[in-house]
């Protein structure tokens, strides 16, 4: 329930003082804009009104009883009293009821210090308790691997339930029992949900809490650093709470970033890899067949010497450099400097998405959060943001829930997002091109046959898309080649009309777009990995998971044939075990820099803790190697200078300065607009449709919750919490002891 942005205002009187507020605003929000905070529990700014806690009651002139300010809309001339003895007495009374069964165990409770109930009780409550009756004790129980529930502390605001229903579209929480025995709980057993933990962060008391932060340091002892999440490409803003050299939690409570208070399971609970004991903490150099610790000077000089030798003996082309979609833009920029210093064209990174094809046809700007929230038609093709981009999924269901937008989904998989779609078109594997041909006005019969759906499906989808005024197209990674190119120029393919079409690539890795911008896709990744050991004799691999594919053994053999392999990574990966030199890199929490998110927005990464061990940021290591190789590196020891060089060399980033990011948060990159050729696209689609395998059977297996979301990637597997909870994209089952621990909750 947020206020409509309107230029109309009205005047109300608050305790006799006239104030001007936006017309149509809720009273509680209008007062907040004036800097007046009304105490509340159940109200939450982007959840539907509940009006159950009765904490925000105010006296409105001519109204018979006190009115909840969270459901009252301001009217011109309204006279409100918020600070009279009557109101203060009411607040005292309400708090007394709320504390009637509250255990008052603040010294033990992890919410102590940032608890809304505690704050309000201090401000408005009684100093003594008049209840002498016994309280209903309820033991705290784990309701998921990440969340535990102390039912007795609950004030029944239902924020958690509403967040689960509306933000997450999961509905795993419910209220159990009635009256004095009421508790917040699950539908029998452990939470069957996405484990996002948003219910915990909106809880105004210590009812739902993170097991990851159980009995840890108090919130006021933490240094909170605002930075950008390192998991998916949505680029949520997180606050890392650190004490000393340890990161203790990752939250988004103040809601300043593009994600407001939203985080997913990985962003919230996947920080464990930062302080993992398995980190490589010092440089390693191979001597007599074994890796031995070395000083930074020795390791870097060894790398520069050997790279120089190979490039002199076999030519610069024999050296390859791999960047990463995981590291900062500054890191990739410095890695590119190394390639430049050697003079090799062989620089690449492992893409998870064919961005060069996508960008070729999109151009201009990518769809931002504002575009998604204000869209009237959203079309998702060939991807599942519910699994891969949780924030995108959260944003796109909001206008759908409010009835402001219609969602259309076309996919060869039974994706989870289809449940909120006005229409879901189930394609056969590889049927995307045929569907797009149908949407572009090709023969419906031919298109429907190849796409594996009914002609009427395509027809109705086309008329729905063409009826939109503000269309957002989300292009998933199932679209390849002609289909990808066509999906990312859908606006040109649809019939002419007055509509704005924006696009969002459903890329996966956190800095995919940044890596594309900085490193480009000059030499395809596959051609580099394919010629390792043949035409390429030396490899400098930064954050590249070379052996994660099915061809791991073949890659291992190729890596073994290299003259020189240097791996720069956080952990001893399989490739690092084969390397001659291993350079330990810092994680995002230990360095400054920038990530570019799914909407092409650049966001700052801030250093939360000092580098673990003697690790160094990627940009520093790479620029030191470049300098040792004889390159003239302009920047010295300053990440902002690296970024300045980046903005000078890349026009898309010219205006995205650190200063702007400091004030605006996310700054969108500006790309040249593209003008796709409609007839060429249609002919490419026609031939792709003709080549579609029409015997391919539909994939009838529905996507399970967590199939990709709970999948442990290159860093997730080192985060103990995630690794303990998930296995093969599934939440692990419970043990007998854990099952037994739930019994008290059931029998209440």
């Amino acid at each position, binding site marked *: 329930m947020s206020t409509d942005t309107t230029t109309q205002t009205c005047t109300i009187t608050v305790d006799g003082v006239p104030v001007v507020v936006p017309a149509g605003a809720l009273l509680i929000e209008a007062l907040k804009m004036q800097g007046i905070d009304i105490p509340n529990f159940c109200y939450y700014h982007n959840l539907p009104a509940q009006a159950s806690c009765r904490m925000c009651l105010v006296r409105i002139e001519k109204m018979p009883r006190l009115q909840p300010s969270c459901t009252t809309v301001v009217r011109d001339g309204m006279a409100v009293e918020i600070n009279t003895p009557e109101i203060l007495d009411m607040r005292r009374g309400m708090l007394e009821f709320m504390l009637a069964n509250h255990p008052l*165990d*603040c*010294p*033990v409770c992890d919410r102590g210090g940032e608890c809304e109930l505690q704050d309000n009780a201090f401000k408005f409550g009684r100093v003594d308790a008049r209840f002498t009756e016994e309280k209903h004790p309820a033991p705290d129980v784990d309701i998921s691997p990440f969340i535990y529930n102390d039912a007795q502390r609950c004030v029944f605001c239902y924020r958690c339930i509403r967040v689960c229903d509306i933000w997450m579209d999961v509905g795993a929480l419910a209220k159990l029992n009635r009256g004095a025995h009421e508790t917040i709980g699950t539908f029998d057993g452990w939470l069957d949900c996405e484990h996002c933990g948003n219910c915990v962060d909106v809880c105004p008391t210590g009812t739902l809490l993170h097991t990851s932060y*159980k*009995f840890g*340091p*108090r919130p*006021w*002892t933490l240094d909170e650093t605002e930075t950008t999440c390192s998991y998916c490409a949505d680029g949520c803003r997180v606050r890392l709470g650190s004490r000393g050299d340890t990161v203790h939690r990752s939250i988004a409570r103040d809601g300043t970033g593009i994600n407001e208070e939203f985080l997913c399971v990985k962003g919230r609970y996947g920080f464990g890899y930062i302080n993992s004991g398995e980190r490589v903490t010092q440089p390693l150099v191979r001597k007599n067949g074994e890796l031995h610790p070395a000083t930074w000077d020795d390791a870097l000089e060894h790398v520069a010497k050997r790279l120089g030798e190979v490039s002199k003996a076999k030519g610069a082309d024999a050296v390859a450099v791999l960047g990463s979609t995981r590291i900062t833009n500054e890191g990739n920029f410095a890695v590119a400097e190394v390639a430049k210093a050697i003079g090799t064209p062989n620089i690449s990174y492992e893409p998870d998405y064919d961005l060069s094809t996508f960008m070729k046809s999109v151009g201009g700007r990518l769809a931002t959060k504002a575009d998604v929230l204000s869209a009237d038609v959203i079309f998702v093709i060939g991807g599942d943001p519910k699994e891969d981009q949780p924030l995108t999924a959260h944003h796109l269901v909001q206008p759908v829930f409010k009835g402001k937008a219609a969602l259309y989904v076309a996919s060869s998989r039974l994706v989870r997002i289809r449940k909120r779609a006005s229409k879901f078109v189930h394609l056969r594997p590889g049927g995307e091109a045929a569907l797009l041909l149908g949407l572009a006005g090709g023969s419906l019969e031919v298109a429907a046959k190849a796409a594996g759906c009914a002609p009427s499906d395509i027809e109705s989808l086309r008329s729905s898309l063409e009826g939109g005024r503000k269309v957002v197209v989300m292009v998933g990674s199932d679209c390849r080649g002609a289909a990808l190119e066509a999906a990312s120029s859908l606006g040109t393919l649809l019939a002419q009309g007055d509509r704005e079409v924006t696009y969002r690539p459903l890329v996966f890795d956190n800095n995919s777009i940044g890596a594309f911008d900085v490193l480009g896709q000059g030499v395809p990744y596959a051609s580099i990995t394919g010629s390792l050991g043949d035409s390429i004799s030396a490899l400098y691999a930064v954050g590249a998971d070379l052996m994660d594919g099915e061809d791991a053994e073949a890659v291992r053999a190729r890596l073994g044939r290299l003259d020189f392999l240097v791996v720069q990574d956080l952990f001893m990966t399989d490739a690092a075990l084969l390397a001659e030199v291993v350079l330990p890199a810092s994680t995002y929490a230990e360095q400054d820099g920038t990530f570019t998110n799914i909407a092409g927005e650049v966001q700052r990464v801030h250093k939360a803790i000092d580098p673990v061990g003697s690790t160094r940021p990627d940009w520093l290591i790479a620029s030191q190697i470049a300098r040792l190789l004889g390159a003239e590196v302009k920047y010295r020891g300053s990440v902002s200078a690296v970024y300045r060089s980046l903005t000078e060399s890349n026009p898309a980033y010219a205006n995205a300065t650190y200063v702007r990011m400091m004030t605006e948060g996310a700054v969108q990159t500006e790309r040249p607009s593209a003008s796709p050729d409609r007839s060429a696209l249609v002919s490419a689609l026609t031939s792709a449709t003709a080549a579609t395998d029409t015997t391919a059977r539909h994939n009838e297996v529905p996507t399970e919750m967590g199939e990709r979301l709970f999948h442990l990637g290159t860093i997730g597997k080192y985060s103990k919490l995630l690794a303990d909870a998930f296995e093969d994209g599934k939440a692990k089952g419970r043990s007998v002891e854990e099952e037994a621990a739930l019994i008290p909750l059931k029998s209440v």
Partner: protein
Amino acid sequence: MSILSEVVDTVRTLAGGLAHTIARIPQPKTTISYPEDPVPLSARFRGEHFLDTDETGRERCVACFLCSAICPAEAIYIEGADDPRAYPDRVGVDARFASVYRIDYGRCILCGFCVEACPKDAIKHGHDFEMASYTREGLIREKDALLANRDRQRGLHITIRT
């Protein structure tokens, strides 16, 4: 002034001073011969802290951090931890307990705010004031030492003034 009057004057002053001294000899002494004799201290004297336990011997401290929050000298460092065992096996009164509790007496000004703030009556002032050390490390007390301080109170070489 003649020499004679000067001698008379000196003798008078000397006698006056000696009379004062001799008059004090039978009176009660205000000094003590430390360290041979016990030091008389007020019952409310704020000496080195001790961490208290309850009647069953469990640590009262639940690592709520209020003492370190109030401490004006930032002398207290705590780390909280979870003791998932059942009540009979626990070290503390609650599942939450202090795995690290450290007071740096190089910083502590013995103001007593921590004792005031403690909601569990876990930290209290003892009477020990012999905390001098030749090293900085010697000024730091860990949890075990602070717990042991509780029983050390009886053996202190002091008397409580009433």
